[in-house]
């Protein structure tokens, strides 16, 4: 019995810690791949510490965690003392109320807070930008409070209530009594609460995601917005360090608690207590110093720049200096020293839309896709551009002008473009089978086929196969597409987005529809991969364009930025990183020839004529499509 128990315990530990172990091992792996361990290296850690941006984000996360845990420990302790003073019945009721936010789904808390901030900031105070560093801080303090109360409360209950009386008896006012006596008694609870709050803050993504504004971003939010491409190994290194930090904090917390218990039974020498007092003082001083430093830094940051240009782009959609590419933002700031760029990212067109439409964010340049441009334009959320400030627009190919989403070329300047085709592995897929979108329905490759995990792209493929328009609003046609997709489901391996990189490069799957630029990138990592564009059946052709939203505060600087991005040299350097097509033909001379000459990224003009771009669908239709897709997925 004892042995089975022990085995069971070991199994549970393995189960709990294996994911972390994998990550830690991966952070020391020489290979880029997590599926095979090629050798030991510290290279990822070196890269991590050379990546200033990543470190600054980490600094942001630590700063917000320290401030939030400090403030919530203060307020949480005050709240706990207040609750402790209530009559027992009332105390129980209030305690269960304060516990509810902990069990409340984060997403609900996040959305509610975001709505509240936008309402108060935007509607009541009339601020242009209602989501800021301060709202993020308030949100973190809010969700940390219950954890502090939960930790402090038992210490208050364990405390001999006569201690407070004794202090007052000896001349203390109630406030003095709290600081001279109660505080010392509940200190272990406060420290435990603060550490817990710190860790909760450090790794919070969901709530932060909804209340993050343009001026301040934490690490988890940033990482999420960058999952379009596979996660860089240096991120593994950072996670490993974060995991170790939290581990150390947790162990410290447990040690403090164990110490506290022992003190009640054990005698301790005086020298020890003198040291403890000294340590406490140093700790308090350090905490105060960090708080002062953090606030000072913020004020300093807020005052230092001249013009701040807020650029809101897709994650990993601009060259950032990594892998020998150009750091486009740094280059821009070098050329225009008066302008400081604040670069923030989103993960989808829909996220961009919701942030903009709720007024939670104020930005100067955005880079939405075709159908979203149409939507934003229709809803009056785009500013007309002054093309006198954008002379480089003349260099943009005519084939990218006069698009349906901006027929008069008033609101948008193309940034990148691309197609959606099929990526397949030539080792396993017979060339004669590669004839069109039907390949994704070919039973011969059962369990080796991947499919888009988003309704618009998935329905698009079915629409091309069935000969419908990809912008159809006919519900019977959409139903027919859904039936087509249902037919495909049994032979699919799975529905995926970013995981496509791992699955295809490692030959776990053989066939997948995906965006040309990403396919090109995967082909660089596995020579057997090939790209096919079903020209006859039709394919999706997309353009991401730069626009200026109506909330823009620095229009001149924004237009300067747009113009800069159309500079062939810059555009070319940018494409070296993102691997999509540049709308500026001249840019080809400034990019990696592999890319410039690739017919995956730059198909013939005659080929391109067969592509169709997505138009904005009425809300009712897109929701209907979404529902049908869910049914397909769950069938």
């Amino acid at each position, binding site marked *: 019995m004892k042995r089975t128990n022990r085995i069971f315990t070991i199994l549970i530990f393995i189960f709990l810690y294996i994911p972390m172990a994998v990550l830690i091992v991966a952070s020391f792996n020489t290979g880029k791949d997590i599926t095979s361990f090629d050798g030991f290296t510290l290279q990822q850690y070196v890269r991590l510490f050379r990546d200033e941006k990543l470190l600054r984000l980490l600094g942001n996360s630590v700063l917000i965690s320290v401030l939030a845990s400090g403030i919530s420990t203060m307020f949480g302790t005050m709240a706990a003392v207040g609750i402790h003073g209530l009559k027992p019945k009332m105390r129980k009721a209030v305690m269960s109320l304060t516990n509810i936010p902990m069990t409340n789904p984060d997403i609900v808390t996040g959305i509610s807070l975001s709505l509240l901030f936008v309402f108060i900031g935007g509607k009541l105070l009339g601020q242009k930008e209602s989501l800021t560093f301060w709202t993020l801080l308030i949100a973190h303090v809010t969700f940390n409070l219950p954890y502090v109360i939960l930790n402090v409360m038992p210490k208050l209950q364990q405390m001999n209530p006569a201690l407070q009386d004794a202090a007052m008896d000896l001349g203390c006012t109630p406030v003095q009594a709290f600081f001279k006596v109660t505080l010392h*008694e509940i200190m272990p609870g406060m420290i435990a609460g603060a550490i817990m709050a710190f860790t909760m803050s450090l790794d919070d993504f969901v709530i932060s995601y909804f209340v993050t504004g343009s001026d301040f971003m934490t690490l988890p939010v940033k990482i999420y917005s960058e999952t379009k491409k596979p996660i860089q190994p240096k991120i593994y290194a950072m996670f490993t360090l974060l995991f170790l930090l939290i581990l150390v904090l947790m162990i410290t917390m447990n040690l403090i608690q164990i110490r506290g218990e022992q003190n009640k039974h054990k005698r301790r020498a005086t020298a020890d207590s003198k040291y403890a007092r000294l340590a406490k003082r140093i700790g308090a001083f350090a905490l105060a110093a960090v708080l002062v430093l953090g606030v000072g830094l913020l004020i300093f940051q807020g005052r230092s720049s001249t013009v701040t240009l807020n650029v809101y782009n897709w994650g990993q959609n601009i060259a950032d200096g990594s892998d020998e590419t150009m750091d486009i933002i740094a280059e821009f700031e070098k050329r225009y020293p008066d302008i400081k760029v604040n670069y923030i990212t989103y993960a989808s067109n829909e996220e961009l839309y919701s942030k903009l439409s709720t007024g939670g964010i104020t930005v100067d340049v955005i880079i939405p896709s075709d159908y979203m441009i149409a939507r934003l334009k229709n809803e009056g959320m785009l500013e007309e551009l002054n093309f006198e400030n954008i002379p480089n627009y003349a260099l943009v190919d005519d084939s990218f002008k006069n698009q349906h989403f901006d027929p008069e070329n008033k609101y948008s300047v193309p940034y990148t473009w691309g197609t959606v085709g099929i990526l397949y592995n030539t080792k396993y897929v017979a060339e004669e089978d590669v004839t069109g979108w039907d390949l994704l329905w070919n039973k011969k490759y059962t369990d080796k086929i991947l499919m888009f995990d988003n309704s618009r792209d998935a329905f698009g493929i079915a629409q091309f196969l069935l000969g419908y328009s990809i912008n159809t609003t006919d519900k019977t046609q959409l139903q027919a597409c859904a039936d087509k997709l249902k037919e495909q489901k049994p032979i699919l391996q799975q529905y995926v987005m970013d995981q496509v990189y791992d699955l295809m490069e490692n030959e776990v799957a053989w066939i997948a529809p995906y965006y040309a630029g990403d396919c090109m990138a995967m082909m660089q990592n596995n020579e057997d991969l090939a790209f096919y564009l079903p020209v006859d059946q039709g394919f999706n052709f997309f353009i991401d364009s730069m626009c200026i939203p109506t909330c823009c505060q620095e229009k001149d600087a924004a237009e300067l930025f747009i113009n800069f991005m159309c500079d062939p040299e810059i555009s070319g350097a940018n494409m070296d990183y993102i691997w999509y097509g540049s709308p500026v033909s001249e840019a080809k001379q400034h990019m990696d020839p592999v890319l410039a000459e690739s017919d995956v990224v730059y198909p013939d003009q005659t080929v391109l004529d067969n592509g169709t771009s997505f138009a904005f669908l009425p809300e009712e239709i897109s929701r209907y499509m979404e529902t049908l897709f869910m049914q397909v997925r769950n069938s």
Partner: protein
Amino acid sequence: MSKELIRLQDLVMEFDGEQILDGINLTINDHEFLTLLGPSGCGKTTTLRIIGGFLNPTSGDVFFDGKRINDVPPYDRQINTVFQRYALFPHLDVYDNIAFGLKVAKLPKAQIHERVQEMLAVVGLKGYENRRTDSLSGGQQQRVAIARALVNRPKVLLLDEPLAALDLRLRKDMQNELKRIQQAMGITFVYVTHDQEEALSMSDTVIVMDKGRIQQIGKPEDIYNEPQNAFVADFIGESNILDGVMLADYKVKFFGRTFKCLDAGFAPNEPVDVVIRPEDIDFVPPEEGHLTGTVTSVTFKGLNYDIIVDFKGFKWLIQTTDHQAVGSTVGIRLNPEDIHIMHKSEYSGMFGDYSSYSAEYDELTEDADDEEE
């Protein structure tokens, strides 16, 4: 002695609709050792906490040196307290515990040092300055608590069952110690206890309380010898309490016989409670006795025997050094000074019958009394 220091006037305390104090009136004199004595829940600790300022009475007033202090918070009263379980500050060592009040009052360091050393000497803890309080024995912690209160030189020291957590031997030592400290410092002690022996041996004045009311105020001897009702008679020492009728001054009738007594001032034929202390009864040969009865049980107690004698179905406790055999017939004589007469009260008939007496009875009740509130 005898200058009035504290006066409680018509104190009433209600807690969630429950009456804790019901009209307390009392005066505490300067330099007096006054004890509030009573069973658990009698209101003695509540009274003490009102004097200390930790509770506000529902109605009634507290006067200190002639001034009403109802609204004066505890930290502004010239009163210090020794708490039930000491309530020493666990994060401070002995020295800092004692110096706590002086530091709050912002006295110069040198003066604090001098006064703490002086107090350490008074309570006999010199050399323990840097010890943590949780490394001290119960008695030592008790002394620290006393020193911590007295170092502030209060006019009054409140002590809430300070010896309850100590074992019997230590309790006896500390009783003497407390009395010595009180006399040496020359200040007023207000002492709360449920231990009647402690109260009688230490106090100048004892106040017996029950059900939120004062039952009797008096010197220890008076409380013992002249209890005012059956409750006091029973709570202080052991008593046989009998129904009687006061025929006239100095004449009381019970058990169908008329006895001479020392009491007067009752209405003719007033029904009364008659108290006879167990140690005041002497055995005589049956034929010489005022009453004759049968011995039903004998317990050896060391100093004496506890003997239960059945008189016409009513069982008495008699404490004597003479051994009597169980079942033997004995006679007793009652002298006038052995008989104490009390007016009838709400407690009449509740105490003083030893029909269910057993040797363990005392110990059981004492244990149950240990915890108050």
